[in-house]
């Protein structure tokens, strides 16, 4: 039931018709958005299955973990991160060399504690979302702040995951900074 071809076909159709240039009628542009969204949804199932294979021990009989993404994170809107108090963030690096990556997502809580796989607390920052983003027509989110942290040295073609907890402001201690 999982179809990687749905996204391939959507991309093929859109590239053939120069879909982002405006050289199609408006209702056709909306249809492209529809088929592209369906294709991406299909691929989310595949990425989630692939990450489960990478994450589990060979001998482990753990249940599958659901990995979801936030397609509206570009307008600081994500119902999952806004409405979940404890969750993990998994960052996958598609490049063949280690990279550092700043992760950013909208939140509703007043403070957050992020811990890496070694149990070390990670430095975080709350950043106000720009007023121009808050007023984008159609944005459905109560979040006014983004949480930012740095995912360091993500291995090539591999992942790192982080444990995120919403906490009271006084519970957060400033992590020690490296020299």
């Amino acid at each position: 039931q999982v179809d990687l071809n749905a996204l391939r076909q959507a991309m093929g159709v859109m590239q053939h018709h120069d879909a982002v240039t405006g050289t199609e009628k408006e209702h056709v542009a909306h249809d492209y958005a529809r088929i592209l969204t369906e294709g991406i949804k299909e691929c989310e199932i595949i990425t989630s299955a692939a990450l489960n294979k990478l994450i589990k021990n060979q001998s482990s009989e753990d249940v599958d973990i659901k990995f979801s993404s936030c397609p509206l994170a570009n307008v600081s809107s994500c119902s999952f991160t806004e409405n979940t108090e404890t969750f993990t963030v998994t960052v996958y690096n598609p490049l063949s060399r280690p990279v550092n990556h700043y992760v950013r997502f909208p939140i509703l809580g007043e403070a957050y504690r992020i811990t890496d796989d070694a149990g070390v607390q990670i430095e975080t920052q709350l950043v106000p979302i720009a007023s121009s983003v808050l007023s984008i027509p159609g944005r459905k989110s109560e979040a006014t702040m983004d949480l930012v942290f740095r995912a360091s040295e993500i291995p090539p073609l591999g992942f790192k995951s982080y444990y995120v907890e919403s906490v009271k402001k006084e519970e957060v201690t400033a992590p020690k900074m490296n020299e």
Partner: protein
Amino acid sequence: DDYTGVKLEIDQTTGLIASVTMNNITVSLTQQYLYYEGYIGNNEIFVNRSSGAYIFRPRNNEPIAASNRANYTIHRGNLVTEIHQKFNDWISQVVRMYKEENVIEFDWVVGPLPSEDTFGKEVINRFQTDLSTNATFYTDSNGREILKRVRNFRPTWKLDLEEPVSGNYYPVTSKILMRDTVRNIEVAVLTDRAQGGSSLHDGELELMVHRNCLHDDAFGVGEALNEKAFGAGLVAKGSHYLMVGNISSDGYSLAAAERDLAQRKLLQAWTFFSPAEKQSIEDYK
């Protein structure tokens, strides 16, 4: 004097960027949003076609400043410092400088463009510096190698350009740059998507970020380029990444840093979220 990071100066009177320091090089640089008004033709003959989905045909050769000043707020932090700038009701941006990243990000939000005016608006982001570029700039057209572009010039025929703005526009897949070979300085802007771009005056780079064309250009769509969402014109949001440095010096080239950034942005790390409410931190580890 020993500052080695990225530094940005803002003119407090206008709220616009005044200079940039990166890789130990300071360049006088202003950045502004402007727009061309789209030409309206009768579409009966080719030279009288309107600016539209297929053709960029500005009414005048000089764009109009969307605003000569910006309201701004600065948000300093341990990981990222942001400057939130608002130019007018339909153009704003966040300028970001992340810790340990040698690049300045311009995260722009443009739209909904006013559509009650007579002419369509074709909005550009222009970076203006004091570099001496000798009418030359470079683009990475078609995702292949960087190509040298010379203003009002074609390498294989004598050019008589009747449309000096659009005739000097080139596709930018991920990068546009200019060089001052005397001062050994390069200024590059990386994009997060394919855009049109040019350098219409020495020391300048411009990229088109959004447009509405209120008249069909009669090339086949049969519709004006004026899409709506949620009852208003579309809002475009994207990023430009500015890099400044030496063209080359001992064992260093800005081009290598640009390639590194382009890889990290175009094949960006993917972020996934999983519920962990029934999971302790030990379970997670």
